[in-house]
């Protein structure tokens, strides 16, 4: 197995929730 996890210290790990939050700024629910 080759891990894709490269960081041991975790960042905030936040991904966009709604597609609207792609940029954490403006909308875009089409995605």
């Amino acid at each position, binding site marked *: 197995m080759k891990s894709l996890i490269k960081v041991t210290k975790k960042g905030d790990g936040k991904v966009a*929730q709604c597609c609207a*939050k792609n940029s954490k700024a*403006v*909308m875009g629910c089409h995605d």
Partner: protein
Amino acid sequence: MEEPGKLRQPGFHHSYLEEMEYSKHNIFSKIADSEGYFLVNPLSRQADILDRDEAQDYMNHNLLSREEYIQKGYLVEPAEEEKLFRKSYLNFIDERDSDEVQLFFTPWYSCNFNCSYCFQDEYTNPHDHVEEEVINAFFRYVDEKFSHRRKYITLFGGEPLLNSPNKKETIKKVLEGATHRNLDVAVVTNGYHLVEYLDLLKSAPIREIQVTVDGTQTVHDSRRMLRGGKGSFDRIVEGVDALLENRIPVNMRMIVDKDNVHNLPELARFAISKGWTRDPLFKTALGRNYELHHCQTNQTKLFSRIEMYQEIYKIVQEHPEVLEFHKPSFSIAKFIFENGEMPEPLFDSCSGTKTEWAFDYSGRIYSCTATVGNVGDELGTFYPQVKLNEELIEEWEERDVIAISECNNCPVRLACGGGCAAIAKTRTGKLHSPDCRPVKDLLELGVGLYSQLKIV
């Protein structure tokens, strides 16, 4: 005989002497155009590439290095995994409660464009003028209801940047209200009047201007034209240049369907030639054209989510310069390769009523941009009086992969998050129903693409 998915672990701590199982959250599949496979677990936040032999062993439940699978949470004691699931859920709720809230304000639904795929084209605009007292009431509501939350305002429409003295005055008041409160402002605009609005935008704390560009000139103008039919491309390009020259961040969004996806490489090359892609204040998004609220005239042009990404995967292989313009997410694949870590488990992908609210000029309150202005989706009013439909709001607030019964046994639920509530409701009539994301299929493509590129 061992049951499928269960493995015995001799020599482990007593609790591990119980039967171990493959995690319910393992996502395993073959990588596109590769001999390799991937194994991803959004709960334990692990992601691995398996060679063919390892994958065969995994499929046959014949693991050679069980310790590694246990350590990474691919092989679990179910009760222990349930504890981690509950802990992660509480953590998700806590984090979200302290997350920034995006507050959309729609000053009107009017628009100077006649886009071929508009989802608001059946909206009516009984009034075309927003009263100052509505803006004041909006900010009073923001001050009171979100006093302890980090927040920012986003101007939405219709088209918020319409070029008449009255409309400009309204936008100015909203910008002043935000500036006065130290709130950032984002704007979702078609970009036609950016130059006329530049001075006003320069005076406010603008976080980002989202401008939609659907391709290079001919393609864009055939989809996003003025009401009279005139093209809009040249003026938008001029506006984007002006924003960047004035160091105002731009988020360029291309809405994609079968009619224009082929133009993506050309748009990418155009953006590269303009120097936009080298500017850290320039970023991009790809949006899928889809049906919301009502059927589109020509449904055959619409992509499903996986179809869109399959097409983009092919395009990027042939035109890698596209990646200079935009790196598609392929679910969580881009995140993993860019950050070298897994995102946090996503118990809810819908931000509506949690970290997103939408308000319009009529004084109505909605959950998000997909519902704002849609008759029947109102959650209350902030003007002329504050009145909330608590029961409906609670239903929105409670929607997550635990509340949606269809998500309960889905292995990809913590990467999917249950999808968009508005789409789910349009499709099933039920808010607590899923809008499933094809996570496994997207990862097959995304892991394939990004592992070839070796961007880690």
